[in-house]
């Protein structure tokens, strides 16, 4: 079973439906015991980094997620959920993240050309930097759906794929069991479902003795 962390941020309907469509039982939960039992954990998120980090902390789920991740359980952060995996974010001030990956979340405005619109919204191609198990079913140049105004910087040790928006923006990260997608795999059609499939496969491999 996969656990989708429910900490009151965002809409989990599509995520749940997409796991159902690939035949992977997933459960939306705010219970640390359920996270402990799961084969893999999905950390979703939309909205502002500071609010989300605070909610995750207040509910006690941050501690549970960090504990499971440090035990080697596959963890997939999606969109803001990916950004939360890093050390800190500079979105409206400075906020601490979970610190599971090295790097800082910064405004895309700092790196993209002035005439590019913000947010980076729409379908963009994945450029694979490093082969990751998360990309085992994905080809270079396949399109995924993005909606974001901040990106993960200084994360060379986990960087798996980027998208070109006048500058290379971090699209996917993975270091050992810690994975993240800046885009929305649950909104990226067939390509996205294949990425969720790859994560589920990673999770089940972990389960075997």
């Amino acid at each position: 079973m996969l656990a989708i962390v429910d900490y009151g941020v965002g809409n989990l309907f599509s995520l749940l439906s997409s796991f159902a469509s690939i035949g992977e039982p997933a459960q939306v939960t705010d219970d640390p015991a359920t996270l402990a039992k799961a084969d893999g954990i999905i950390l979703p998120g939309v909205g502002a980094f500071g609010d989300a980090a605070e909610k995750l902390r207040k509910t006690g789920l941050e501690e549970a997620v960090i504990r499971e991740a440090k035990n080697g359980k596959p963890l997939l952060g999606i969109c803001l959920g990916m950004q939360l995996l890093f050390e800190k974010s500079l979105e409206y001030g400075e906020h601490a993240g979970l610190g599971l990956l090295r790097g800082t979340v910064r405004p895309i405005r700092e790196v993209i050309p002035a005439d590019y619109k913000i947010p980076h919204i729409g379908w963009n191609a994945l450029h694979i930097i490093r082969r990751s198990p998360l990309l085992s079913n994905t080809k270079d140049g396949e399109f995924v759906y993005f909606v974001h105004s901040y990106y993960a910087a200084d994360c060379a040790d986990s960087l798996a794929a980027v998208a070109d928006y006048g500058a290379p923006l971090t699209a996917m990260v993975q270091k050992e069991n810690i994975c993240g997608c800046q885009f929305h795999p649950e909104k990226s059609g067939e390509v996205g479902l294949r990425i969720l499939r790859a994560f589920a496969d990673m999770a089940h491999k972990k389960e075997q003795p």
Partner: protein
Amino acid sequence: MITKRIIPCLDVRDGRVVKGVNFTGLQDVSSPVSLAEYYSSCGADELVFYDITASSDGRALFTEILTETASKVFIPLTVGGGINTVADFDRVLKCGADKVSVNSGAIRNHSLVDEAAKRYGNQCVVLSADVKRVDGVFRVFAKGGRENTGMEAISWIKRCVEHGAGEVVVNSIDTDGVKTGFDLEMLAAVCEAVSVPVIASGGAGCIGDFIKLFKTLPQVDAGLAASIFHFGTVRINDLKREMHAAGIPARMTEKE
């Protein structure tokens, strides 16, 4: 490279897809769920569901259909029609919508865009504006294009963007249903005024109209149409192929 989005719009009444020509004379087309699945499989980048139901029974049917679609189709879904309050946002977001488009609701209640953007984020709020020239001035129309609000369109759109609309759909009543191309003059005026994504709507009759749109106005992010897709006049995979051939960034899918 971010791609130009192609968006079929499904007008839904009492659980069926309909499309009007110049907003009158509706004609039944198909089942929304199967049409949505079909479009998703042939490369649509996003779908808009527009609820033109008046009755509460029809509205309940709409949310059922939305839920069913969102559990089968994994591309962004925008919902519009009958969105008057933040509670309406909540109702459709819970059924799997990703973005909500406001039109008459924002005209009636000027704080709706602001409130919704604060609660759900700008990326969730799409302003849909029905615009028509009246004595040479772009005016905003309400109630499905039937009522002239008297408001000047460009300043209205600008105001909504300042209050949190994350995208703008510009629907030209002058070109809607006429199939002689998008309203490039109107779209240029909107692109000049705002820096959020602009979606062109109204007037597409053939593939060439989309090519002309993106070639003439590279600032436009997406093209939206209904009947030409529903009746098969334009097939989305053919459109994507021709956009690609013309050097317009388009999402190509393997299924072609």
